[in-house]
């Protein structure tokens, strides 16, 4: 493209121009900059100042510009009014700088005329509750509500769930197992479970729940009713050749209608 060779320098120049600042007005004490300021004559420097000087000028950068110099300068005013910055510039070689063009700036004041100090802030009315206190009260209310919910709603819900998932008692498990074994429908695992349940049944019935397992089974075997039953079940389940005339259904008949109360008989008596 034939115009592209000019496009880049133009854009760069535009960017530089946009960057250059020319601040001719500022409020008291606020710094302002004037960049790329070309002034005739020899190189300049800030003139000497004292405590009465209303304007302070600093030269940030000085660059040759043909037979002149180009300056980036910073200034700030200490009293409101219109000033010529050229008055506070001097030649570095000590010659007069009378040929400088005026560099007019305006220092404004945000205070009303005649007022030198900012007015004291008028005391305003504080809100009744600050944000933090409000947050604390809201959090406290939520905590109390949550605690009450846990205590009352959660407990009711857990009770309802516990009722829904109530564990079957030993008696509940024993009855169908006895039925299955009596009808020949139980497998080896079922028969073994039946034996364990019968031992558990008699442990509860004879008050042997806290006894050691080995002592408990010896006591059960020594019991007239329980021992007879257990020995028959053992013979049926564990002998290499179970007795031929063994009527499982008749043996287990008393346990078909066993209830949870039967397991607690001894405990109630005690």
């Amino acid at each position, binding site marked *: 493209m034939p115009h592209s060779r000019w496009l880049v320098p133009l854009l760069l120049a535009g960017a530089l121009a946009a960057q250059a600042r020319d601040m001719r007005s500022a409020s008291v004490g606020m710094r302002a900059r004037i960049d790329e300021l070309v002034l005739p004559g020899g190189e300049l420097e800030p003139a000497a100042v004292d405590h009465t000087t209303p304007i302070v000028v600093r030269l940030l950068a000085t660059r040759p510009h043909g037979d002149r110099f180009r300056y980036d300068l910073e200034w700030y005013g200490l009293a409101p009014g219109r000033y010529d910055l050229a008055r506070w510039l001097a030649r570095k070689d000590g010659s007069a700088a009378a040929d400088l063009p005026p560099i007019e700036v305006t220092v404004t004041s945000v205070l009303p005329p005649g007022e030198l100090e900012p007015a004291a802030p008028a005391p305003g009315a504080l809100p009744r509750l600050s944000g933090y206190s409000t947050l604390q009260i809201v959090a406290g209310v939520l905590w109390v509500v949550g605690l009450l919910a846990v205590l009352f709603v959660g407990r009711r819900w857990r009770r309802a769930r516990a009722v829904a998932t109530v564990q079957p008692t*030993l008696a509940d*498990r024993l009855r169908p197992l006895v039925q299955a074994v009596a009808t020949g429908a139980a497998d*080896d*695992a079922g*028969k*073994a*479970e039946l*034996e*364990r*349940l019968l*031992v*558990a049944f008699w*442990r509860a019935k004879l008050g042997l*729940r806290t006894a*050691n*397992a*080995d002592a*408990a*089974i*010896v006591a059960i*075997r020594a019991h007239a009713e329980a021992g007879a039953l257990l020995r028959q079940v*053992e013979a049926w*389940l*564990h*002998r*290499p050749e179970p007795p031929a005339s063994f009527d499982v259904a008749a043996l287990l008949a008393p346990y078909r209608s066993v209830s949870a109360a039967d397991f607690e008989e001894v405990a109630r008596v005690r």
Partner: protein
Amino acid sequence: MTVHEPAVTRFAETRAFLHDIRERVGKVVVGQDVVVERVLIALLTSGHLLLQGVPGLAKTLLVAAVGKTVDLAFARIQFTIDLLPSDIVGSEILDQKTHEFRTHKGPIFTNLLLADEINRAAPKVQSALLEAMQERRVTIGNHNYPLPAPFLVIATQNPVEQAGTFELPEAQLDRFMLLHRLQYLSPQEEKEVLRRNAALGVRRDGKGAVARTEFDVLGDQPVGSADKLVRAMEDVQQVHVSEAFLEHCVEITNRTRRHPKVELGCSPRAGIALVKASRARALIHGRDYVLPEDLFALAEDVILHRMRLGYEALAEGCTGQQVLQEILAESPR
């Protein structure tokens, strides 16, 4: 024995043999019937036995008595902190005459080895013994030697003096089929011990005399040979194990893995040990089939050292015995 021999007759012989052993051991060891039974179970199943008890409960005397009664080669190693693996398994030594290395077999080459206070030896010595227990072979130099058969290790450890001991980790405890915790004798049994001890007298030794000990009472004449023991071991294999009993064993070992207070449950090896030990116990009690009674009687010795309680259970002050009884009493699900 041939397959035609009636099982009842054969078991009767074995029962008589076992009865004789118990009777002979009972002459020198008072009470401890359960311990004698556990030693016999270990003998009959080639399972190793760890006896745990305070000093003075006749652990060593008991094992020595069994060894002499059955005519088995018996060796005893007192485990100490400075024991080396080569002190147990043996080593190769240079023969000064032939200038060749000669194998010196250690005391482990025996039938019945008493490892006294096994927890006093360094872990590498414990490992050497436990490896031999598992493999039933030892390596000396570049050669591998089988251990004699039967080979049985009965180890003891004192649960009280723990300073300067190295507790056996669970994996090594698992090598012991049974860990039996010895209890103190009843007052009547203890009185009998004192009575017998008072009647021991002295033994003349050269020109002097020494007080006789219970070890002097041990008869040198065994009641049976190693052949009889092997025959009894074969009989154990004939003891019937029902499917229901296997179900019980699997259920119990699985409960140890599910129990909330147990951090480490039993391995399948525990189930195997339960069945093996129950068979031997059934034979000792004159049965050719196992019963849940055997399982309940042996559960503590087989299971307890194979499970580890969790931190919370220990913090609550639970003991392994309590948790095991909960497991055994737990209703089936």
